[in-house]
């Protein structure tokens, strides 16, 4: 078990923890945070798998993927926060209704 394996396991753990948060946290901002941490876990795993290249250099492909992933994550976060603000402005609520099809 080398350093990269630790990173992979840590990334998986982060993913699992934030998945739990996403499910149980009610506040929308906390849910958005959970999504971000989940993304962090994924990126950690991606960076760790770059060790597979021979020699001392890291495999550049996963790094490129992380960059792309960060761009996507930023866009998602930005839109999610705007959506949360608009929900609060419209209804005063910071949580999703229990019933998925609830009318407001």
């Amino acid at each position, binding site marked *: 078990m080398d350093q990269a394996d630790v990173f992979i396991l840590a990334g998986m753990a982060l993913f699992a923890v934030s998945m739990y948060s996403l499910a149980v946290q009610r506040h929308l901002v906390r849910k958005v945070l959970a999504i971000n941490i989940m993304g962090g876990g994924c990126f950690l795993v991606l960076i760790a798998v770059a060790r597979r290249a021979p020699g001392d250099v890291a495999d550049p492909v996963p790094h490129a993927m992380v960059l792309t992933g960060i761009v*996507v994550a930023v866009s998602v976060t930005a839109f999610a926060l705007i959506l949360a603000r608009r929900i609060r402005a419209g209804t005063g609520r910071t949580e999703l209704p229990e019933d998925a099809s609830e009318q407001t």
Partner: protein
Amino acid sequence: MVASTAWVAIAVAVPLLAALASLWQGRWTALIVAVLAIPGSLLANVGVVWTVFELGVHRHPVGGWGAPLGIDLHVDGLAAAFLALLALIAAVITVHMLVDPDMRALSPRRRSLFWSLWYLVWGALAAMFVSGDAFNIYVTLELATLAGVILVSFGHGTTALFASMRYLLLGTFGALSYVLGVALLYGDTGTLDLALMAERIGSGAAPVVAAGLVTVGLAVKAALVPLHVWLPPAHASAPAGVSAILSALVVKAGFYLMVRFWFGPFVQLDGATWTVLGILGAVGVVWGSLCAIRQERLKLLIAYSTVAQVGYLFLLFPLVAGGAHAAAWSGAHYLALSHAAAKAAAFLAAGNILTSQGDDRLSMIARAARHHHLSLLAFGLAGATLMGLPPSGGFLAKWLLVTAAVDTGQWWWAAVLIAGGILAAIYVYRVVRLAYVTSPAEPPGSTGPPRPPGLLPVPMVAILAALALALLSVVLGFASAMPLRLLEIGMPAVVPPEPEPGR
């Protein structure tokens, strides 16, 4: 028509260029872009289909770089069929939205944003269908989801915002689960190309975990029960055209990718999963249909019907695992195509009714149903595919699927298909009967009820768009020889390990 691998690049590029062009806030921008993009896209897709028939499965290296450095577009019969149907359906929906009064009510800025996102969904889906690279799939899938989420938020009221938020959170979870799986796969195989991945994939724990993560991620996108909870509110509260494309094709994208992975890299992994996917699909068929039967709002009814219909598609996996290969393959994908046309028609028809009376509760529709008879006719024709009755592509698809089940002695899957058809008949009937209700106030012998107050006129083009898609789903019941032949080009010959290991 010239057979050329470049057609596929054009087919992907046209909607993406249209997305860019739509950002220009001009009075006529939407119209001009549509007039250029629709014929361009249709022509390019004819070219793609032609090329597949001429050359078979082929790749197009974008910019001439070629894999592994550049991006390869990978076209087989399945991809070409989805790509062509996407172009056809998206074109009709575009026409519908051009005349949709709700769209005209938007401010110029929001309208140009809307159109840009619309073409982005279209382009992202097109790119995804022809992508042979796991990470490109992630990017296009996330692009389609994100653009779709924003389009949902254009719907009426805070319901749409809640729906959009729920869709965004679950959709992102799905995407991240997928990307984590892909990361592990890359660690195992050192490639992102699906074909190479299939050759190199190992047999340790990592590929199994990766397969689980990828499958869960895609199951969210495909709204496979129990990961379907985001779908009904999102599809029910989005603008009509957006609901149509989401239900018709964006959901199918999840299924499509599931097929790409399980008939590609994962094919030798774990036979039990094939059955599990089928069981979840069957639960989806029953649960979705029962929910649809209970709905009071038309758009929610149609949305739950999508949950049910997606469930059918997943019967592909156990049917193939049980030994019925070609019939199940053709049947499931043909159902996906027919359902796409029918469901788009149903949502456009529901949108027309909603636009006209500002309410889509069935009890309210009943009061003015005779003014919506063409929209209800479109719904009824689409309903034939949902029920799997002729004349429709759904009937043919169901015939093939039941044949696949019965031939290999898997009676329980046939029972699911039949039961689903009967349940669908119930919810379709609940809507179609409204067209024949005579309101009590109506004097006998009159030529129609008086127009209820507050009923807005619906543009004839919008009604015809819904009818056109409904007719498409009917025509697929007869003009099926060509699409079915197309689906067989490049059909994976591999048979999964269960129930006979070593085959």
